[in-house]
């Protein structure tokens, strides 16, 4: 009798305590997809963006993760091929079961991934400035819309140098669409497009274009060339004697990494670039961001607008997950419109109607030490307008469809193709 009185309550108490303090199973990590070209012509541009994405993920994990769970990035290679992007996006969502994808660079790849994420009601965070004319409930656009980069630059350049614009770009959807808008804009303010020229992606055959520029002598050149062609382009310009004093060039796809890859003998010095973010921006947030990136990847590395946008994307997504206390894609999509943060470039907020971000347009001059020095910036973040006033959804859709059809059912000129 006496023994029971002692050990029965003791065992019951121990059992209950054991149950109460039995360690909870560690929650599984939240899987996110990171989809960029790690091979092919775009790899040189996209790898740093992937690194910025992974940096943000690491920072969140280092600070304890999200909702007590770790974030596990699943990295996929788009191989610079839009079709591969689509396949990999499909695989990430349906096989890996990721909650969200951070990725894409070219509009061509984005436009292939768009139907995939829409079909699966998933979410893509897209980090690069683009031509606009697009909107999706399943894509968060963190790069600049036309009215946040290109159109302010048109006004700025026109009032500074005059209204004869020479347009040169790579032969795929973004430069075509951007130039289409620039042309409309110029027309509205009484300017003229001196010429509109396209180079195949990766092409070094810039001589003809440069000769044409020299011959036509425009007020300004608007450059939407992407990738390595810029190296040849700027070198040929300087060799041809075209400097920023004679014919200034404003570039829309030349960021810090591209600057580093230019020839070292002063190519591009004095010319201009339009972005929302430059590494040289002096804010506490930017200093911390640049330091973290350099600490992780090396002091000689640089950061660019798309990298910053990619980093912001992860942070905003994490805020949204925290706000809804869930990694569920549908819930996150509902609240992502209300997210905002003090980013390295300044205040960034997602606009609810378009899933684009409020961003600050900036123009910078390329200094001799191959850094950007900001010469103009908008006072406040600008409301994103994917469909500019000068066009409407129907017209834009028609225009894009024509491009798509003209290229034989893809978003960039066929490899052998030159001009459209």
């Amino acid at each position, binding site marked *: 009798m006496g023994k029971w009185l002692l050990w029965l309550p003791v065992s019951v108490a121990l059992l209950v305590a054991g149950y109460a303090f039995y360690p909870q199973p560690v929650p599984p990590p939240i899987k996110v997809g990171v989809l960029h070209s790690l091979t092919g012509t775009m790899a040189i541009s996209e790898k740093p963006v992937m690194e910025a994405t992974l940096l943000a993920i690491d920072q969140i994990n280092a600070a304890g993760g999200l909702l007590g769970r770790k974030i596990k990035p699943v990295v996929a290679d788009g191989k610079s091929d839009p079709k591969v992007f689509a396949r990999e996006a499909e695989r990430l969502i349906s096989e890996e079961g990721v909650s969200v994808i951070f990725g894409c660079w070219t509009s061509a790849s984005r436009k292939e991934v768009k139907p995939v994420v829409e079909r699966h009601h998933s979410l893509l965070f897209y980090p690069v400035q683009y031509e606009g004319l697009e909107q999706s409930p399943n894509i968060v656009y963190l790069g600049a819309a036309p*009215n946040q980069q290109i*159109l302010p630059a048109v006004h700025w350049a026109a009032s500074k140098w005059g209204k004869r614009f020479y347009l040169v770009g790579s032969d795929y959807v973004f430069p075509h669409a951007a130039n289409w808008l620039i042309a*409309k804009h110029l027309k509205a303010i009484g300017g003229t497009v001196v010429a509109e020229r396209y180079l195949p992606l990766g092409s070094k055959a810039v001589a003809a274009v440069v000769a044409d520029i020299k011959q036509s002598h425009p007020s300004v050149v608007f450059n939407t060339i992407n990738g390595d062609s810029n190296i040849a382009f700027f070198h040929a310009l300087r060799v041809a004697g075209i400097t920023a004093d004679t014919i200034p060039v404003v570039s829309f796809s030349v960021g810090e990494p591209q600057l580093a890859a230019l020839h070292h003998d002063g190519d591009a010095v004095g010319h201009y670039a339009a972005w929302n973010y430059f590494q040289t921006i002096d804010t506490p947030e930017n200093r911390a961001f640049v330091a973290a990136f350099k600490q992780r990847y090396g002091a000689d590395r640089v950061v660019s607008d798309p990298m910053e946008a990619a980093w912001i994307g992860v942070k905003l997504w994490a*805020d949204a997950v925290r706000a809804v206390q869930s990694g569920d894609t549908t819930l996150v999509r509902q609240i992502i419109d209300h997210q905002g943060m003090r980013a390295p470039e300044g*205040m960034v*907020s997602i606009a609810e109607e378009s899933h684009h971000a409020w961003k600050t347009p900036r123009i910078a001059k390329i200094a001799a030490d191959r850094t950007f020095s900001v010469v103009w910036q908008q006072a406040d973040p*600008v*409301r994103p307008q994917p469909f*500019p*006033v000068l066009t409407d959804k129907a017209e834009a859709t028609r225009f894009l469809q024509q491009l798509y059809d003209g290229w034989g059912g893809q978003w960039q000129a066929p490899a052998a193709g030159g001009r459209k």
Partner: protein
Amino acid sequence: MNGAAVLKRARRSLFGEFMAVITLIVLLLVAVLGWYAWHAEEQITTHRYLINLQEIALEKDNAIRAFINRQIAQVRLLGRMAENSRALEEIAAGFRQGGVDAPACREASARHRDRYFDLLTQGGYYDLFLIDLDGNIVFTIKHERDFGTNLNDPRYRNNGLAKVYRAAIERMEVTNSAFAFYPPSQEPAGFVATPLFDHGLLVGALAIQFDTKALYEEVNDLIGLGDSGEVVLARRLDGQHLQAIAPLRHDPDAAFKRTFAVDGGLSRPIIEATQGISGMGVATDWRGKRVMAVWHYLPALKAGMVVKVDVDEAMAPWRVVARTLLGVVALGMLLAYLLIYRFARSRTEPLSRLTAASYDYIAGDGSVDISDVAAINNETGVLADALGKMLAQIERGKAEQQRLLDDLAENNRQLDRRVAEQTAHLRAVIDHAADGIVVIDSDGIMQRVNPAVEAMFGYAEADLLGEDVTMLMPAHYRADHRHALERRRRSDDAPLMLSVELEGVRRSGEEFPLDIHVAEMRVGGERLFLGILRDISKRRKLEAAQRQLSLAVAHAEDAIFITDRNGVINYVNPAYARLSGYSADELIGKTPKMMKSGKMEKAFYQRMWKAILSGRQWRAEFVNRRRDGTLYEVDQSISPIKDDVGQVTGFVSVQRDITKEKQQREQLEHTQRLESLGVLAGGIAHDFNNLLTAILGNAALAKMRLEPTSPAVEMLDNVENASERAAALCKQMLAYSGKGKFVVEQVNLSELVEEMTSLLSVSISKSVVMRFDLSPQLPPIEADVAQMQQVVMNLVINASEAIGDRSGIITIHTGAVEVDADYIKTTYLKEHIQPGRYVALEVSDTGCGMDEETRKKIFDPFFTTKFTGRGLGMSAILGIVRGHHGAIKLYSEKGKGTTFKLLFPCAALEGGEQGKARGEEQRVVGSGSGTVLVVDDEETIRVTAAAMLEDAGFTVLTAEDGAAGVEMFRQRHDEIRAVLLDMTMPRMGGEEAFRHMRQIDPDVKVVLSSGYNEQDATSHFAGKGLAGFIQKPYSPKALQAKFVQLLAE
């Protein structure tokens, strides 16, 4: 005192402790659980409320955005209407003619005014503007002060309208302005503008000013925010302040009037919201009240928004629940306490009663009734029952106890009697004990002594009892004794038991040895020490005597052993063990027969046994055998040991080792024999020489007198030949006796042998080959050349004879050797030489060799192995070597050959070069002057010494003995500067001659010369002013140097 009173006086009661512990446990449990539940519930409720509030905030956010977006969408639509562009162009054209008041402008405005008025009311706008490309506001509905102004004018550049206008013109975008106070309207205003195009060409902008009230209505729709909730919209005014841009529930006039300080510590949510940070939580609002808040940044208004509700209100439902919970817990605790009280009381009260009853029983109340307690059915009841039975047993026990006590008393009486008897018994034993018995207490005070102690120490019992026992001890033991007692007092070890031998002190002061047995006793808790003392002074004396005796035997130099009557050894001393080579263990139990050498006859032993068994002492020299088989001789005396009745019980043998003594004696005899032979030979040879001189002289004279043809000539030739051989023999005898006086010089032995080569060759058998191994770098020795030649010749001839007619080799080797003491021991004449550097002359042959017997006698005079030999050759060599302070070593093996090795001391290196022709280097010509007297009985010495000194430049006088010398000195002492005096001379020795010369001239310089060494020679002249000493034989240089130095002083 009864039991109840005792219980009352107890400071603590079982019941009280029970209550305290249980109450404490309950309170602690309730407090911890309550605290935890309270906080958990509060947190959960807060969290839930905030999630709820977030929903409301998002809706509010959406509503405000929707309002703005609606305005933008409408204006965008207006921008696409061609009539608006047309209207602007018409009005602007008029404006260009003279501003807003130009008739063309007025007219155009009037044309479009109605349509725009309709638009204004339909859209719910406050005002509508048309602005041309130059920034002129060419058309408004309200015609406020802004009408007709230019937006590029610095005064207006920064207002909302100008901003949206520029966005439209420059970026072609339709956007809204931030919400700000607009001076022309005298109230807050927001604008939206769109660019206007005419056929794709930009012509200007259309702007609307939207209705502030509509926005404020959206903001102040407080559904879901209860009674205290409010929405705060604020923008950054400057770095330090925020400004409300909409009315607040708690301050309706707040818009553009109320500011919030950023560093005021309040309003964290709105501060963060304007910085772009979203969040939720509990914070303090601008009124200082605790609120639950959710906050966001609104990019469209460039403002922060906070949706909040006072904590008081938000948590009100929870507070009600919490209070109720508190009440229930309190009541539950009360109930629990009462139940515990009741329970504890009912369980402890019977215990109290039992306790009281026990006390009552002790106090003598035998009639204790606890039957009602015993009826309880648990441990208390059992206890009560047991107590009852125990009390009954105690009652029964009391009677039994009394009976036992009576029995015990009787037993005690009997015991007392027996103890008394025993005590008397013991007392008698103690009193009659031969040993002293002392009992002391732990302080050392004597409690009891017996008569033996009185007798032993000379005190009466009364003198001892109560005194400290140390009085019986010598002073130097007392401190130790006290310390030992002290230690025992403090120790809890097993009782002490020890036996020691110490000294005691009698009353007379005499110290005597005591054998003491001490035993520690515990008697009735008291610690006592019993000492039993025995006077052992007699025993000690006996022991000392015995020890002395055995030590004497053990340390005796003589070997001693003791046997029993049968000769079985039972003691040997160390000296005997040393002598015999057996250890004591090996010898004891054996008989001395084991030492028998067999050298003595049986009869010897029989005589011995007969003598000693009859009780006589026997003394004789024994030859015994050691353990290692060698023999030794002893002078042994065997004495019988007799018991009290004269019976022989054993024997003691005392032996002295006389082996060495005997050997020495034999050696001495041999030496003496040789010496006497030498004296004899020397004497004979001396006289014979004289005789031979006469014989030869006369033979020569006789021959001269004879005709050469006389037949006697041949006979005389024979006489001469025989005489010359006899003279040669004499010379050898003289050499052996050491009497052959010789003259030393520095001799190189290698050169000497080399010069003799041809001579040696003809002296040996033809079948023998000579080999020379002569060291070219040989140090010189001091030697007589003629004698050295004689030595070499003798050795070679002997070697040749040892080889005989067979073929063989004789090798002559010279060399320098270092000789040490060990080596010297293996040589002949070893007693004459010292360790050092020597020149060796070695003559080896391959002849017949010598046996042990021959080797022993080889140097004895007249010993020969040759049929024709005279036995003097080797003894002559020995004599010569001795005369040169050298030594001889002999190696020989029968049948193999013999080697003689002669060692001569190296000459002291006194100047001059070695290896020069003999004699040449020793001259010191002309370095001395004056007259020297040479006194020596030996003419050769006299002549030689004179020649040496004359060479050195001295004038020399000579005298043939001591008397002649003294006489010569007496006559010519003025002229004589120094005297060379021989020590032993026939008429007046050197000693006496010196004395006489001193009488003539006390300052005479006398150099003594002698064949003895200096110490022996000069000991007779100690303290007598001898000027110097020179030992014979001497070299010319030594002599010259002595005198040159002496006379130069």
